[in-house]
Each structure stands twice: as structure tokens, then as C-alpha cells.
């Protein structure tokens, strides 16, 4: 077992543990904290795949900015613990069979494709920060700028909604 595989399993276990804990926790803050664990573990996985820029951005944007906002809102509202209810009928008759079916499909797919998967071409240059930014600002400059406008519009919308109450 190489160190890379060992680290992969640790990070993957951490991500799965965080995701399960996110659903099972009863307090919103604990759920948000579990989500941060998932984000950081995913960043670790990106790092393992050799795309360090995406890993850093994952932590800065998702782990930092967005989750801080979540925690901030929960702290401001100071929500209490959730009440635990019984399973809804939809979950019992629709959800659980569906989850089992999806798990079965994935397991079957993995079991059938063992061994003769083509190795991914190690394209190290694509993941380097410099080539990534060159691509964003040359080939994909219009989608990139359009996304910025979309976010700007969303911010303006938030300001308008916040102002309306006064």
C-alpha cells in the first residue's frame, strides 16, 4: 500500500464520515461543521490528484467564505435543536429502495470494471495554476466574465431584497 493510497482512504473516510454526520446531527451548527469537514477532505483529495490550485480554492471559497456565511447565519438566528420525527411514508417506500438501488448500481459498475480500466493520462500541465488561469482568461474568457456578471446580479438582488424592508 503506497502512502498515496493510504492518504486517499483516510481522506475518503473523513469525507464520508462528515457527510453522514451532516445528516445525522441534530444541531444546525454541528451539521455545518460536518460539512466543513467534507469540504476540507475533498480539498485534500484534489491535492492528492495533483491539482493544488483547485484544492486551495476549494478551502478558500467553500470551506472559508460560504461555510462561514452558513455558520454566521445560524449563530445570528440561534436556532435550537431539530425535533426528531418518524420516517415519512415517502422515505420508507420511495427513498430507501432508491438508495439501495443506487448503491447496488454503483457497486455493480465497480465490480464489472475491475482491472481493465484505462489509466488516466497524467496531464500535469493542465492542472498547474498558470495554465489554468491562461485558459480562463483566453479560451473561456466569455463564460468566465458572464459568471462574474451573474454573481454581481445576485449580489444586487440580495441588496434590493434587504433594502425593501425599510
Amino acid at each position, binding site marked *: 500500500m503506497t502512502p498515496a493510497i493510504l492518504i486517499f482512504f483516510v481522506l475518503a473516510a473523513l469525507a464520508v464520515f462528515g457527510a453522514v454526520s451532516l445528516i445525522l446531527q441534530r*444541531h444546525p*451548527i*454541528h451539521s455545518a*461543521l460536518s460539512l*466543513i469537514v467534507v469540504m*476540507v477532505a475533498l*480539498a485534500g483529495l484534489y491535492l492528492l490528484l495533483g491539482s*493544488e*490550485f483547485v484544492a*486551495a*480554492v476549494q*478551502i*478558500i471559497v467553500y*470551506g*472559508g*467564505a460560504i461555510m*462561514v456565511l452558513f*455558520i*454566521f447565519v445560524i*449563530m*445570528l438566528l*440561534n436556532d435550537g435543536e431539530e425535533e426528531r420525527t418518524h420516517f415519512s411514508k415517502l422515505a420508507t417506500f420511495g427513498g430507501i429502495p432508491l438508495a439501495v438501488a443506487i448503491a447496488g448500481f454503483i457497486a455493480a459498475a465497480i465490480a464489472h470494471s475491475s482491472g481493465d480500466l484505462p489509466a488516466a493520462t497524467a496531464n500535469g500541465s493542465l492542472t498547474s*495554476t498558470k495554465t489554468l488561469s491562461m485558459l480562463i482568461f483566453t479560451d473561456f474568457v466569455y463564460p468566465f466574465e458572464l459568471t462574474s456578471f451573474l454573481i454581481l446580479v445576485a449580489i444586487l438582488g440580495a441588496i434590493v431584497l434587504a433594502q425593501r424592508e425599510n
Partner: protein
Amino acid sequence: MNEFLTQYAFLIIPIIKIAILVFLVLTVDAYLTWLERKVIAHIQARWGPHRVGPHGLLQPLADGVKFIFKEDPMPANVDKVAYILAPFITLMLALTSLAVIPFGPQKFTIWGYETTVGIADVNISLLVLFAITALSVYGIALAGWGSNSKYSLLGGLRSSAQMISYELSLTLSVVGVLLIAGDFSLRNIVEQQGTSGQGLLTWNIFPQIIGFTCFFISAIAETNRVPFDLPEAESELVAGFHTEYASMKFAMFFIAEYTSMIAVSCLATILFFGGWLSPFPASWTFTHYLPSVILIPFGLWVIYDGLRYENIFGRIVLPSVGAVFALLGFALVASPLVNGIIQGPFWFFAKVFIFLFVYIWMRGTLPRFRYDQLMSFGWKFLLPVSIVNVILTSAVILWRTR
């Protein structure tokens, strides 16, 4: 044994380096509190700590012992996970941020493993630092929320709002340096500042004076220090987010604060003041004796001062400490090889020390901001100025390459 060492050198050497760095940083943290109390005392025409040990030099040790042996009560109805996790997150992130900082230029090989002065030499070290800064909000926010106390909650909320606001201008103020260097690696940013061999003339501080001003102001706000220490404003919030913490948990917040001060000072040194580069032109080789020129007179002065000290303990300890300094200075003159190795770290730590002194100096000088002033300063002044700096820098770079 030797085979084992060469095989696992990639694992053993970083662990040794981490142990050394953590030991050094914790010691420096302890003596930074001593320096801070002493300097502020002298600013305010007091003596500062002077009871425990000569000149109060053993005060940090006494404080440490006190922190360890104090009772550690947990208030009722706290959120246990958040309450216990918060100081650990804060301290862990503060210490981690030092891992990507390069302290000197040398690369050396031990047991067939090439390594650097610094723990990790990654090519996106600046982004890693910002990622750590982004996460460090959680420690304070969780401490404030988990304590189940009004003062703590208000302190935590204030602090997270402040850190989110100033993180933007902190990140944007660095973009100018990144544009000049064209690289995220702190090592390359430093080396790029010294390519001409002209000393301090090629440091980033001159083209990036606006960027540096924005960076330093937002960095002070990020580390929650005076004049931006609203999260722990004593007159309003008792002690802010760490009101309900005692004993070692309180000490962890304290150590984390001083460690992030050190990290920010290191970052300012690297980005704007040429890191480990000497401020003198490379041809002035006589400046290599500067460490000795500082160490020998300082050691002799400590000996002279110690011999006059009021009690017998100080009359023994201080002269021996002085003798160590003076001998170190003479040893550096005697051994040009060691003197050459010490140059980089010497300049690095000298610059970091100046920044730390400025931190303390400001705490002794400036009053605290009001909260609305803090917010409008961050959003309406600092952020636009750093954006203008980015635009100006890119315009100049574009104009030069044409």
C-alpha cells in the same frame, strides 16, 4: 539504521523540523508577551514585569506554569463540541500557517533527502496561507457561540464579521505582488526581489507601497490586534469570545494570537521586504559581519548591566547570558562558513522582529476603533484602494511589456 533513515527521510526530517519549529515558535510567543508587557510599560512610564527573574525574564515561564496548573472549569450549558474544539482549531491553524513560510535561501541534503529552511516548500504557498486564514474564523466563531454567553456570542459575531470583511482587502492587496512576481510560491517571490543584486532598491515595497499599507492594516485586523481588537474589547464585552475560557484553553487562544502575529510579520517580510535578502548591495561583503557587530556589543552591554543588577541571581544569570551572546558574535567572525549560512535567517528574523515591534508599538499608541468606523473603513476605504492598486499595477506592467 542508516538504510531506514534514507528510506524514510521524507517522513522523519519533516517531523524533526516541525518539532524544532513548534518549540522555537512557542518560546518566541512566550517571550513576545514579555517584550510586549515591557515595551508597553516603558511607553506608559512604568517598569513592567520585573519580579520573576532578572528584568522579569522568567515571567513567561511563571505564566506558563500558572496556566497549566489552573483549574479548567466548563460553564454550564455550553455546547461541548464547539467549546472544546474552538481553542484547538485556533491554535492548530495558527501553527499550520508557519509551515509554508521559507526562513532562508539554503537547500541542504540530509540522508539523501533534499530539504529547505522551512517545513514545506509548496508552489502555491501563498494560497495555502489564505486558505488557512479563511478557516481560522471558525475557531473564534465557535468559541463565541459554544460558550453560551452573551458577551462571548457578541465577541464571536463581531470577530467573524471583521475577519470576513478584512480578508477581502488582505487578499486583494497581495495581488499586486503576485502580478510582479508571476508566481504563488513565497520562495520565488523573495528570489525575484533580489535578482539585480542591488539590495533594498528592488524590494516590492517601493512599487507596492499602497499594497503594503492595505496589507498591513488588514493583517492587523485579521489578527484582532489593537486598534482592531473589538472582538475582545474589555470595556464593552468583558473579554469577547474567550470570556468563558480559563487555564490552558485560554492560553491556547493567547498563543494562537501571538503565533498569527508572527505569521503575518513573516508574510509582510516575504512579500514586501525581500524576505531573507540583505538590504545592502551584494558587492558590500563587509555587511556580512553585521550579526557579529550587533551581537558582541549587545552581549558586552548585558554583561555590564548584569554585574550591576540588584540581586545575586541576576548578577550571575545576566552576565552569563551576555557572555553567550558575545561568544556567539566572536564565533561568527571566526567561522566565515557559519556566518554565510546565518545571513539569510538573520535578515529574515531582523525584519520580522521589526514588524512585531511595530505591532506592540501600535498597541501602546493607538485607541480602539468604534465598530461602525471599523466596518466602513474596511469596506468603503480599504477595499476600493486595494482594487485601485491592482488596476494600477496591472496597467504599469502592461505598459512596460509593450
